């Protein structure tokens, strides 16, 4: 294909997206569109998979059967979400093995938030309430993104995510209505998860390298700062309802803007965690890589069994 042909195809492609048409797997697409989508969708899938680890930590210690069943179901959902997203990503011509390699080698990133530890039961409440809350804000606009397989996966993810947030809030509410000690536990969890949750929505707009292109391709419908403001505005009243305090002394309702003003975010901490120096980066990667390696014999056995059944069928047929 000549350069002129490609320019022509690109123009038609951009026009289709501008008209809100969906792009499907076998359609022609610019190489950069493909690469950007592989990066974002795989990062999203990896986050779901690694995201199971901090919560899995509490399954055996959930305080009641009701909580345990809900937490198990939530963690199973995260696995499901990871699989929907890997499936969508593979339609772009990358194999599952390559995707895993990128995660295991550290080449691909996952959400920085999962590198924080879950040290008390209240952390499970805070994750559902804040982390899933921030994730929903990020994900709802993606149900309309231009790439069909990604948009369809996101519709399914969003439908399931709302239970996650509600179960988290319910845990917080129960603790806040409990003993002084339990309420202190909820406050402590909010103190530790608030700032990482704000960071999770990504660097500020002036520092975000992908925003402009991603907005054009509808991979992003709102900027990081807009999403962050939306998150703060909807979460602060929820904290008030719980009777616990958001750990930001600069947090103040701005009547003129109809939004909360908030204090400075420690971006150094964010970049440290992204670069692998968060409290649990090593632990998470070790857990993930060893689960994969230790499961190899099971995967091999399943293939051997399938082959044997196939051979048997052939033998009876002949």
């Amino acid at each position, binding site marked *: 294909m000549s350069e002129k042909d490609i320019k022509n195809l690109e123009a038609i492609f951009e026009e289709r997206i501008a008209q809100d048409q969906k792009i*499907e797997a*076998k*359609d*022609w697409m610019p190489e950069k569109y493909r690469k950007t989508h592989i990066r974002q969708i795989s990062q999203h899938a990896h986050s779901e998979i690694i995201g199971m680890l901090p919560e899995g930590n509490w399954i055996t210690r959930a305080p009641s059967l009701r909580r345990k069943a809900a937490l198990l*179901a939530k963690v*199973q*959902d995260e696995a*499901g979400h990871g*699989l*929907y997203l890997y*499936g*969508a990503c*593979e*339609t772009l011509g990358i*194999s*599952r*093995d390559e995707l895993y390699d990128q995660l295991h080698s550290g080449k691909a990133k996952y959400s920085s938030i999962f590198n924080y530890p879950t040290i008390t039961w209240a952390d499970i409440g805070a994750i559902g309430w804040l982390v899933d809350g921030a994730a929903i804000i990020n994900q709802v606009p993606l149900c309309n993104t231009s790439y069909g397989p990604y948009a*369809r*996966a996101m519709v*399914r993810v969003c439908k*399931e995510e709302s239970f996650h947030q509600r179960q988290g809030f319910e845990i917080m509410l129960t603790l806040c209505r409990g003993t002084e000690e339990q309420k202190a536990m909820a406050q402590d969890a909010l103190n530790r998860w608030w700032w990482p949750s704000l960071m999770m929505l990504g660097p500020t707009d002036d520092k975000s390298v992908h925003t402009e292109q991603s907005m054009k391709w509808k991979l992003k419908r709102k900027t990081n700062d807009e999403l962050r403001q939306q998150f703060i505005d909807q979460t602060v009243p929820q904290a008030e309802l719980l009777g616990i305090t958001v750990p930001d002394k600069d947090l103040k309702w701005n009547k003129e803007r109809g939004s909360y003003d908030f204090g400075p975010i420690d971006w150094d901490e964010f970049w440290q965690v992204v670069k692998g120096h968060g409290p649990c980066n090593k632990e998470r990667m070790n857990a993930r890589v060893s689960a994969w390696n230790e499961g*190899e014999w099971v*995967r*091999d056995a*399943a*293939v051997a*069994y*399938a082959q044997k*059944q*196939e051979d048997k069928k052939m033998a009876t047929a002949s």
Partner: protein
Amino acid sequence: MTKNWPLWEVFVRSKNGLEHRHFGSLHAADAAMALENARDVYTRRNEGVSIWVVESKDITASNPEHNGELFEPAQDKVYRHPTFYDLPDEVKHM
């Protein structure tokens, strides 16, 4: 070296009376495992009453580059639609 599990496409009938619809894909060693995985991945909330799985490599798909010759000829065959035919208003039940 591990042999990779093949890719399967999953189709789910959400309730009797409706057709199976494409839900997504997954990896599994064989058809029985693909069905079990499909149940766990795609029907955790009563989304279905019946599942089909088919190995992705067995699907033959049309190429979007041929969409013109495949689908455009239908566009100028307006006589296939009932509104193409002019009838007086007095004709009822037609």
